[in-house]
């Protein structure tokens, strides 16, 4: 399934590709998507995850505009056509 990913304001991570159209398996979750993005942008997964495997509070991971932390965090299931935005938490106003 197709998922559009937009990585904003992530100069701090040295992001190489800020817009990705990824073809992912049907059972993709936020956690597995982060792994896929990491293949394009090494270091992404380490930055987005805490040692406990949760989403890092330093960043906000949006699924169709909604903060993944208010969904099911790393376990949030993704669907075809979902739009993902990732920003540093500091950019939230």
């Amino acid at each position, binding site marked *: 399934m197709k998922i559009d990913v937009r990585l904003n304001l992530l100069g*701090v991570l040295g992001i190489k590709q800020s817009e990705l159209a990824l073809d992912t398996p049907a059972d993709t979750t936020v956690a597995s998507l982060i792994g896929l993005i990491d293949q394009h942008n090494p270091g992404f997964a380490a930055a987005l995850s805490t040692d406990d495997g949760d989403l890092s509070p*330093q960043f906000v991971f949006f699924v169709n505009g*909604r903060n993944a932390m208010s969904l099911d965090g790393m376990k949030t299931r993704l669907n075809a056509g979902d739009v993902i*935005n990732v920003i540093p938490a500091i950019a*939230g*106003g």
Partner: protein
Amino acid sequence: MIVDRPESHFIFVVPLDHIEYRYNYITLRGEPLTNKQYLEHWGKWLVFGLREEVEELARKLDPYVEEKKIPAVKYDRKLITEFQLNRCVMCVYCHDETKDEVWEILSALGVRDKAWMYERETLEKWLPGGVNLEKWIQGRGLDHENAERVRADARAKFKKMFADENEIFTGVYQ
């Protein structure tokens, strides 16, 4: 109306009525929100772009703000280099009950980033221990004493601001 006060990092788009008659735009269907309602329902769509891009968008949003289809907008005057952000951030504010209508306006104007954040989430990040406040303290290299003073000030400010949950929310000076 675009309000550009040089002393502020932010540039605002608010209704002219707000400037002339102190119209409160933090409302739902004309009813001002209480502190509790504000924390539960008020938020913003985040938009990212170069200064020229967000300025152009602000000009396009201004008529919607005057018509009160969008309550208010604020955006960065310049890039915040100490946080290594390479884009300006624009906040397009509204109640969560109207966020889909506001998104339709933004989408029609070409906005593609879709990021909704409640004000509650932002405020929590600026409390002691919150990622934004701690990063701000770190970025300025404050010593322990000054860092503790900043934390205490932040705690006191928010406590005072939301002391009575049934009071009408009166805003955050920025």
